[in-house]
């Protein structure tokens, strides 16, 4: 059960957590990641995506993770549009039999989402001016830890 959604509405992390699919017989571990807008020096954040390609790209990262670790369910919801400080940007959950697979797959999908999903952030500074956020070299290096051909 792999699912990806792009949402213009605020993410209800508590409801997503409650409804995340699990098997009472087989799911021993669920790892979630939630990314939030950090309000340091900014008054708002806006996210733009490439409809269709963004969803497919995240799904590709999930399938790539599922070939590496025995995961049962993976769900990603990514916010777009304008967000205030403290709002969730992205929620990701991985269900697996055991925790090692759940932790690794969750971190892997986030690392690849960061460098491969067409999403772009702009920040509004405290004077009200919008600036595009530069991509981080560190994100690319982090994703490379997992070795080559990860998205293939």
């Amino acid at each position, binding site marked *: 059960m792999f699912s990806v959604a792009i949402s213009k509405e605020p993410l209800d992390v508590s409801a997503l957590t409650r409804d995340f699919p699990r098997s009472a017989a087989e799911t021993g571990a669920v790892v979630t990641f939630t*990314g939030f807008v950090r309000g340091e020096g900014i008054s708002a954040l806006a*996210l*733009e*995506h*490439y409809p*269709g*390609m*963004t969803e*497919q790209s995240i799904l590709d990262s999930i399938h790539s993770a599922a070939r590496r670790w025995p995961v049962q369910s993976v769900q990603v919801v*990514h916010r777009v549009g304008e967000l205030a400080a403290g709002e969730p*940007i*992205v929620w990701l959950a991985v269900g697996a039999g055991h925790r090692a697979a759940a932790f690794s797959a969750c971190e892997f999908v*986030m690392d690849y*989402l*960061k*460098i*491969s*999903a*067409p*999403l*772009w*952030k*702009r920040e509004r500074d405290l004077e009200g001016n919008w600036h*595009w*956020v*530069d*991509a*981080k070299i560190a994100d690319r290096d982090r994703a490379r830890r997992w070795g080559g051909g990860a998205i293939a």
Partner: protein
Amino acid sequence: MKILFFARLRELLGSDCFEIADADCPADVAALRAMLRLSVNAQLAESLADPNVFCAVNQKVAGEDQTLKSSDEVAFFPPMTGG
């Protein structure tokens, strides 16, 4: 043939797409970049020459030598900053 632009590139273009006649469809991505650089403003032209600016063909990131046909969906965008 519509060429889509996202984020900073869209702002530089002042529009989210740029049209070229189907008959003018370039042979590959490199040729498309070269053609576009002659048609857009200096700042966007500079961005199109940047190897860190991606080209996607039919919603998949494409190399410079990927061949093009006029029915392809082509897009240019800067490095991703989601998550």
